[in-house]
């Protein structure tokens, strides 16, 4: 081989040099036999992960585990921080889910981080819904990916965000409708929380969702962030208490004492909740309905044709599942909204198992949302 022409291949065809060529962590040849076998097996694992990621993931699933060490029915640890944008927004919440997978000494952390903030606008209600307010959702963010000049990638991501926006908007609107309906027992209808003055004034809740990092399962994190931000949006201004109509100005609404209202909002504290710890300290408040979702990947084992549900799939796992099932649960009534598309048919047993997992997740998150 001529020295003037650099070869694309390393001079010796050993695994360690192939790992260097592929920019993988290398092993030293002076280690003991046991260490070298384990370190070489971890190099093989890394090689498999980069050359055939589907087989890499399927090898874990066949052993009924996942690359990050979770069980099939286990969600990633999640943390919710509310009120960090006060007083600039009416309510806010930051949801973070993190998972770490370790091969030998190499650790890979994937994080999903979603920030939701709410603002309130006062306006005129629609003529066909004079006693209801309005909810508008905007989804933005790059998801932690540097799209740059990749126009097609940017367009695809915007399309995904648009679908997520439509789903969040519909879910929040249905939750608000359900709230009005459920409180109307006994013939005495309790008005919508966004109503101010029938036919004349109502609140528009604008929810802005910013995807800071996309590590998989954006839907669950975004809905949880919206619900936590909505719950953090207190107190809502009320007619007669915070707002008064001024007849001289054509019945327009004016703040009674705007500084006092802002101070009331600013004095609420920032809270951090860990989704895996059930805090049932405050059970005195009446339960309010929230909606939480649980996304599961569906995978069919090709050997025995059994169907498995992978709770909270990561971004890496989502590429190789055979279907995606998202179950939205109402925390008060337990009603389900299943959304499924995939190649694997789901039987009644699979649906019942998914419902059970979703209910358990809803119970876990309800402790945070209702506290």
């Amino acid at each position, binding site marked *: 081989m001529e020295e003037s022409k650099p070869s694309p291949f390393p001079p010796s065809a050993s695994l360690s040099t192939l790992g260097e060529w592929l920019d993988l962590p290398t092993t030293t040849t002076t280690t003991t036999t046991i260490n070298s076998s384990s370190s070489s097996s971890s190099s093989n694992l890394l090689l498999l992960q980069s050359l055939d990621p589907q087989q890499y993931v399927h090898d874990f699933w066949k052993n009924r585990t996942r690359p990050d060490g979770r069980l099939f029915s286990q969600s990633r640890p999640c943390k919710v921080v509310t009120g960090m944008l006060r007083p600039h927004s009416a309510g806010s919440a930051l949801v973070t889910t993190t998972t770490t997978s370790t091969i030998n000494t190499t650790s890979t952390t994937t994080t999903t981080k979603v920030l939701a903030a709410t603002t309130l606008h006062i306006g005129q209600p629609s003529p066909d819904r004079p006693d209801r307010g309005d909810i508008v959702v905007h989804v933005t963010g790059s998801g932690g990916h540097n799209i740059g000049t990749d126009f*097609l990638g940017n367009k695809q991501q915007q399309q995904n965000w*648009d*679908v997520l*926006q*439509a*789903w969040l*908007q*519909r879910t929040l609107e*249905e939750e608000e*409708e*359900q709230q*009005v*309906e459920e409180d*109307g*027992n006994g*013939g005495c209808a309790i008005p919508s929380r966004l109503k101010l003055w029938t036919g004349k004034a109502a609140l528009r809740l604008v929810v802005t969702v910013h995807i800071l990092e996309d590590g998989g399962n954006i839907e669950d994190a975004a809905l949880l962030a919206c619900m936590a931000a909505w719950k953090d949006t207190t107190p809502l201004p009320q007619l007669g208490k915070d707002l008064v109509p001024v007849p001289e100005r054509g019945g327009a609404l004016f703040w009674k004492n705007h500084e006092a209202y802002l101070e009331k909002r600013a004095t609420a504290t920032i809270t951090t909740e860990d989704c895996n710890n059930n805090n049932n300290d405050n059970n005195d408040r009446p339960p309010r309905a929230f909606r939480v979702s649980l996304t599961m990947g569906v995978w069919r084992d090709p050997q025995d044709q059994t169907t498995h549900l992978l709770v909270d799939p990561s971004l890496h796992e989502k590429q190789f599942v055979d*279907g995606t099932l998202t179950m*939205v*649960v*109402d925390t008060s*009534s*337990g*009603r*389900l*909204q*299943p*959304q*499924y*598309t*995939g*190649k*694997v*048919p*789901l*039987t*009644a047993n*699979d*649906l*019942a198992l998914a*419902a059970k997992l979703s209910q358990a997740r809803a119970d876990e998150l309800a402790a945070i949302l209702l506290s």
Partner: protein
Amino acid sequence: MAGSNSNTNKRTLRPDGRPSQGNTLRPLACELSCTHRADGSALWKAGLTHVLAAVYGPIAPLVIAKENPNLGMVSVVIKMADQGQQQQSNNQTLEYGQFLHDVLTACIDVAKFPRCVMEVVLQVIQSDGSMLACLLHAAVAALMDAGIDLLYMPVATTCLVVLPSSLDGTKKKKSRILLDPTSAEEFEDDDCSSVVVLVNEKNHPGAILGSHTFGGGVPLEDLLACVQVASKACHAIPAFFRLAMEQKVTRESQTLWSR
């Protein structure tokens, strides 16, 4: 008297004249190859809900970077008839489009069409309930007309689940499930009803391949009851597809060979 007759009718018939038991589909009609520019087209009618579908492809994508070297891609475009409520229809169109894209990608043999795009354009001509199911059936009929290989034939069933409510004083303890609801039925009991759309196929009638839910949600037992209803309804639609295809083939043979 007319008043008592109308009350009796309310108990025995649904608003569009179907029996109140709720397990009857609306009359179906399908016309294949109704547009000549597209590779495949179908006009699907279910009662007063009319959808026109056109399929273009498999063709090479306009942007080469959009090619997938291993699999074909499916693109779904939906145009709604209702232009009044723009924002609501935009959101609905996005969700429907994503759902149909996922279902059609799973049922089309995309491995046979690498580097190709199959564009499905759906125009809603008239809307009277069960829109998502009609969109899917129209798309499948147009794909069959275009001669695109399908791994299975998806069938969508719309179930309106009316939950028991104590607002009006009556004690309805069991939910009612109405098959293939009209628009009036979907919005009638807005507060205590949910619409569940289930997709399955004839070979696995008891299992679902897709699901989409609107409204407040349903209890688990009602969801499983909807799966049972869908499993019984999924035999009727493929038979109707076969009938429509046979009529088209017969019509074309008479046209081609007539002197």
